[in-house]
C-alpha cells in the first residue's frame, strides 16, 4: 500500500445555518485504505461526508478539505459536478436514495455516464452486478427502483458508483437500513470490489462492530470532533478516549 495522502481535512468547522456541527476536524486519508468513522447520531459524521461532497445547506466556517491540490469546499458547482462521481463517489443511507424511484435503472445509468461523457458499457455493468451478487442484469436494468428491495437498491447504487471508477468512495451508513444478513453481504461485496479497484473508502457507521471487521483505521467522532483516530487494532484493543471505551463496552454480546 502506498502511503500517499489522497484527502486532507484541515481544521474544518462547519454549520447548518447557525448550529455548528463540526468543530476543528482534522483527518487525512491514505490512498487505498478503508477508514471507518464511528459515532452516535448527531455526532457530525454524515455532515463531514456531506461537507466533502459540497452540500449547499452546510456552511464551511473555517478550515479546508484538500483533495489533489485544491480545497474542494471552494469549488464552483460545475467544477464539483465533474469531481463528484468520477473522483469522489458518494452513497447514502437510504437505499432508495440513489435513483429516481420511477425510472428504469438503465436510463439512470445512462444519464450518470453521459454526465461524465462516458459510454454505456453493458458488459462492465454486468461484471459489477455479478461481483455484487446481482443476477440477470438485463431484467434488473429494465426495472424501476421502487419495485426492488432495499438490499438490491443499495447494491445497484454501489454498482453505479463503481462504474465511474472513483478514487475515493464515501459511504454514509449504507448498511444501516438493511437487515443484518443483507448488510453483511453488501459489506463483503463492497470489500471484494475494493480489492479489485484499490479504491479508498470512508465508511460512516454507528456500529463499531462493522468497523472492527472491515476497517484499516478507525476514527471516533463525538460532538462534532474526532476524539480518537488510529489503526483498527489500537482503537479496539487499547482505546484512549472515554467515549471510545464506552462504545466498545456497549457492543452487544450474544448470551445464552
Amino acid at each position, binding site marked *: 500500500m502506498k502511503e500517499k495522502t489522497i484527502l486532507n481535512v484541515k481544521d474544518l468547522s462547519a454549520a447548518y445555518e447557525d448550529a455548528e456541527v463540526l468543530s476543528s476536524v482534522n483527518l487525512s486519508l491514505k490512498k487505498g485504505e478503508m477508514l471507518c468513522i464511528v459515532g452516535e447520531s448527531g455526532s457530525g459524521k454524515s455532515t463531514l461526508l456531506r461537507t466533502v*461532497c459540497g*452540500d449547499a445547506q452546510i456552511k464551511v466556517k473555517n478550515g479546508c478539505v484538500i483533495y489533489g491540490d485544491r480545497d474542494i469546499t471552494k469549488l464552483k*458547482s460545475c467544477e*464539483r*459536478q*465533474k*469531481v*463528484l*462521481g*468520477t473522483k469522489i*463517489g*458518494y*452513497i*447514502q443511507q*437510504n437505499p*432508495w*436514495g*440513489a*435513483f*429516481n*424511484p*420511477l*425510472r428504469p435503472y438503465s436510463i*439512470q445509468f445512462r*444519464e*450518470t455516464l*453521459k*454526465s*461524465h461523457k462516458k459510454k454505456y458499457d453493458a458488459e462492465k455493468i454486468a461484471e459489477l452486478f455479478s461481483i455484487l451478487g446481482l443476477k440477470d442484469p438485463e431484467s434488473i436494468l429494465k426495472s424501476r427502483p*421502487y419495485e426492488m428491495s432495499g438490499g438490491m437498491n443499495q447494491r445497484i*447504487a454501489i454498482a*453505479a*458508483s463503481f462504474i*465511474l471508477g472513483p478514487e475515493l468512495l*464515501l459511504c454514509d451508513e449504507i448498511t444501516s437500513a438493511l437487515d443484518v444478513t443483507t448488510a453483511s453481504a453488501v459489506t463483503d461485496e463492497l470489500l471484494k470490489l475494493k480489492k479489485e479497484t484499490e479504491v479508498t473508502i470512508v465508511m460512516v457507521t454507528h456500529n463499531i462492530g462493522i468497523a472492527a471487521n472491515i476497517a484499516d483505521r478507525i476514527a471516533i467522532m463525538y460532538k462534532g470532533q474526532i476524539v480518537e483516530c488510529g489503526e483498527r487494532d489500537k482503537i479496539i484493543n487499547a482505546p484512549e478516549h472515554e467515549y471510545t471505551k464506552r462504545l466498545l463496552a456497549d457492543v452487544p454480546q450474544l448470551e445464552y
Partner: protein
Amino acid sequence: MIRSVLKKLAEIIIILVVLSFFVFVLLYIAPGDPAEKRLTSQGIVVTKQVLDAERERLGLLKPFLVRYGEWLFSVIKGDFGVSFKDDMPVAPKLYKGLVNTCILAFSSLMLSLSLSFTLGVASAVKKDGIFDHIVRIFSFVANSLPNFLISVLLMYFFCIKLDIFPVIAAGDLQGLVMPVLSLAIPMTGRFTRQIRAEILNRMNEDYVTGMKGRGVKNRYIILNVVRNSLGHIFTIVALQIGTLMGGSVVIETIFRWPGIGKLVMDSISARDYPVIMGFVLIMGAIYVVVNSLSDVLDRTLDPRISE
C-alpha cells in the same frame, strides 16, 4: 381494469344525478316565473288566464318530482328539451356555446400552462435569484387580481385607448385575444406558484442528493424532478378546469363571447330552466371526467399510488 372503469362510470352517473337533482331543487325554490318572463319579453299583456295557459304549456304546473322525473328520462334518451325562451331545442344551443367556450378555455389553458411551466421550473431551479424574485412578484400580483378586473383593464388599454382589439368579441380570432388573456393571466400566476412549489418540494427528495453525489448533470436532475412532478401538475390543472369554465362565464359576458357562459347568463335572467339544467349537467360531466382522467394519468405516471 374493466371493473375499475365500470366503477368509475357508475360513480360519474351517480354524481351527475345527485347534482342535477340538487340544481333542480334550487331552481324550483328560486323566485321568478319562466312563463311570466317569456310573456313579458314577447310584449304580451300578462293576465292570470294567459299566465296559467303558458304555465300549463311549459309543464310548470305538474308536481315537482314528476317534472324532475320527466326531465331525467328525456335526458337519458338524449333529449335536453326545448328552450322556454324561444322553443328552440336546447342541445344545439348548448353545443354551439360549448364549442366556443372550449376554444376560449383551451387557448387560455395552453397559453397559461406553457408560460407557467417554463416560469415555474426556471424559478425553482434558480431559487432566490433575480429571475425567481421577478417571477414571484409577477405570479403573486397576477394571482391576486380577479379576472373581471383584468378584463376591464385590458379592455380599457387595448380596446379603447390603443384600439387594437375589438370590445365585443364576435367569436373570431381577433376577438379571442382579450378574453384569453383575461383568463390566462390570473391562472398563470396560480400555476406558476404551484409548479414552482412542487418542483422545489421534489428537489429535496433523497434521490436528488444521490444523483448529485454521482455528479449527474443538472439538466438530467431537473428532467427527473419534472418528470416525477407531472402527475401532481396534471391534478392541479384538472382542478383548475372547473374554475376556468366558471370564470369564463364572467369573461364571456364582459366580452360578449358567444360561449356557453354567456348563454347560461342569458338563460338565468330568462329563467330558462331547460338550458340551465343542460349547462349544469354538461359542466358537471366535464369536471368529473377530467378529474377522473387526471387520476388515471397520475397513477400511470406514479404506479406507487395505489388504486
